[in-house]
């Protein structure tokens, strides 16, 4: 039982369901309570113990079906009456091995006996292969490049060499037959290894892609990766929420917490010895985010907006704006529509124009100046290229004077700043911080900093 379960949990982890050790113990306990007798019940119980969110439950369900596939269970059900109550280790365990065989043989019998290998029928062959696979430790497979190695190992355990000797020594007719046998065997082993590979590495490709995408500059991420990127950014946003949702407390002097004080001082016979002051919780920061969606940042705009969208989900008080030559508030749009809809709508409506920072910041000033106070962080996402027009420094500075700070995130690498029509040098005088923001990794770092130092 334990081997089946631990292999299953490994497969689960491979599909990105987080399973802790204590949860594995729970799963074993649940298995004891429910038994292997009823597939539906088993699935439901394990899902409740192992998968802890709706997403995870879906992945769990897929993985479960792949692992205990149907034909497998029919075999188990035949065995079920005998063991559903007892749940002794070995029997159900072997019966449920992911390979889909109900095996009557014990471990180790898979090896050797080349003579029988020669005339074994298909089922016996499968059983032998499954056993050999277990011996070879196929469940440790991680990369598709390991396929050959594991196949070789299984074949060795199963006794391919003996079979080859036989083929060599056998007369022509028999040799022909034996060669066919060998081909079948190899085919069987390959299928077996492939199945295991699929099971245990289901998620390693996305994981790898995720790692690469995190470091890719936003402007060079391809549109087909957008969906994936979206998930990535969303993940990032969620992590940030978890990190920062704890509200900060500050002690405020001057207000005595009478109840707490009396309670604290009871041990001194009611004499007020220690005082307890009322604490006040401070809310999370207010953020005003402005995103350039003009032609010059076209490739990055989609991701900047995506990021902006995620920010509105992370921080409760965010007002979002988009502009190319005209500024528009998109807070409501972001709140009501899904990420994809909202972003394509914003791009379509406001994007692709030529940039006019002067106009945009003027608009911004008139729209938000009353809302800007010492707790507000203004976030500007843009390349600072104003087509040789007025960069809107006056308005930006006005906002700067009122706001807690202005942070400018530029998707261009630093070497390109101040070249051509870029006004970064002038604009940066009205900002508290100017930073390159080229990849998801940068985003994460910056947002985390903003949130940590906010308040």
């Amino acid at each position, binding site marked *: 039982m334990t081997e089946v379960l631990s292999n299953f949990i490994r497969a689960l982890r491979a599909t990105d369901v987080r399973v802790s050790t204590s*949860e594995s113990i729970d799963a074993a306990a649940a298995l004891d309570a429910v038994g292997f007798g009823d597939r539906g019940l088993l699935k439901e119980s394990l899902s*409740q113990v192992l*998968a*802890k969110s709706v997403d995870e*439950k879906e992945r769990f369900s897929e993985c479960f079906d792949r692992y205990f596939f149907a034909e497998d269970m029919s075999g188990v059900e035949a065995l079920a009456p005998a063991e559903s109550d007892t749940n002794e280790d070995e029997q159900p365990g072997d019966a449920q091995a992911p390979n889909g065989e109900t095996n009557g043989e014990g471990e180790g019998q898979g090896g050797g006996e080349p003579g029988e290998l020669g005339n074994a029928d298909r089922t016996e062959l499968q059983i032998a292969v499954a056993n050999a696979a277990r011996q070879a430790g196929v469940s440790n497979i991680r990369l598709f490049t390991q396929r050959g190695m594991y196949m070789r190992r299984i074949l060795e355990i199963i006794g391919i060499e003996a079979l080859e000797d036989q083929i060599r020594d056998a007369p022509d007719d028999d040799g022909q037959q034996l060669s066919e046998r060998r081909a079948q065997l190899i085919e069987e082993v390959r299928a077996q290894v492939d199945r295991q590979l699929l099971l245990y590495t289901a998620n390693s490709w996305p994981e790898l892609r995720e790692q690469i995408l995190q470091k890719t500059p936003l402007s060079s991420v391809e549109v087909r990766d957008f969906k994936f990127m979206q998930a990535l950014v969303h993940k990032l946003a969620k992590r940030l*929420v978890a990190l920062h949702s704890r509200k900060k407390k500050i002690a405020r002097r001057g207000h005595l917490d009478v109840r707490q004080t009396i309670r604290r001082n009871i041990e001194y016979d009611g004499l007020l010895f220690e005082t307890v002051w009322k604490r006040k919780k401070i809310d999370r920061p207010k953020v005003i985010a402005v995103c350039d969606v003009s032609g010059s940042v076209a490739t990055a705009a989609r991701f900047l907006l995506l990021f902006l969208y995620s920010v509105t989900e992370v921080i409760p008080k965010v007002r979002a704006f988009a502009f190319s030559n005209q500024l528009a508030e998109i807070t409501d749009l972001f709140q009501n529509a899904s990420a994809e809809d909202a972003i394509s709508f914003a791009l379509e409506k406001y994007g692709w124009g030529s940039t006019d920072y002067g106009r945009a910041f003027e608009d911004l000033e008139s729209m938000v100046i009353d809302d800007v106070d010492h707790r507000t962080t203004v976030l500007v996402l843009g390349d600072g290229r104003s087509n040789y027009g007025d960069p809107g420094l006056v308005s930006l500075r006005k906002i700067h004077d009122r706001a807690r700070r202005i942070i400018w995130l530029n998707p261009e690498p630093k070497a390109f700043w101040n070249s051509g029509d870029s006004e970064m040098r002038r604009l940066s005088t009205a900002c508290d911080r100017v930073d390159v923001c080229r990849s998801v990794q940068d985003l994460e770092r910056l947002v985390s900093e903003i949130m940590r130092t906010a308040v």
Partner: protein
Amino acid sequence: MNTKTIAMGDTPRAAIDAVRAGLAGTGYICGDSIATAVYLAKCLDKPVLIEGPPGVGKTELANATAEYLDKPLIRMQCYEGLDEAKALYEWKYGKQLLYTQVLKEKLGDLMQGATGLQASMDRLHEFDDTFFNEEFLEPRPLLKALWEEEGAVLLIDEIDKSDQEFEAFLLELLQDYQISIPEIGTVKAKQIPIVFLTSNNTREIGDALKRRCIHLHIPFPDTHLEQKIIESRVPDLDASMRRQLVSFVQELRTIELKKLPAVSETIDWARTLLLLHAQELDTELVRSTLNILLKFQDDIENIDAELVSMTRKAIGAR
């Protein structure tokens, strides 16, 4: 043990069916997954974290389980700012103050005959533990649940509304069914209670908490189950009407709305239609009672155009 427990009988399947039947006996109709969760909670002595859209019967499950097992239900509603003093215990300050007064007056009597400081202190030490003892403890829901001799069903409602600190503080309780009171020590559960936590997912529940719980997700019920629920909750409604209204609600859930109607709303609607002696759904009837199902004016206006076709479809449904 208790008079009524979850039967650990012959096979797990039978036991789970028994749970389902037991819950059905209290008027709570559910599928396999919910019965399994209750069964596992009992077998593994683990709390159950219930998630799902509002109004699918998360809280109701705790009620039904309490009734089924014939145990008291202790309910704690979470909210922002909930702290130990309100959830766990509080000292009875007034009584403690009175006690000190009494002690002061009696001090002379007590000290009679004691000569010297040492002797007086020794005499006094005989009494000191009485001050912080269970006499002066005012139990709040969590402590109450632990003190319950026969075990209890503890419902921690809307855990997502509480602060993260509170969540962390719950961990000790959920893992070991004990709590620490600094002045007294650890209080262990007299009988391990069945704990339900509910969450509407307004914020992500911490991993530490999730790890300690069995996770049950209750989705909206399917047509068949919902009909059975209505049948049990509003038995007077006749069958064809029931079929129509359930299929209408099911249809409604496929539309993009701000807030989808939940089971509780279906039940309310069924009651309303019963009150109105409606024999069959028709567009006018639906329109005039729609505000029971949908709680946003936007939603009501949005589906107004489709009302006729939806009603017709619902009437035709088998």
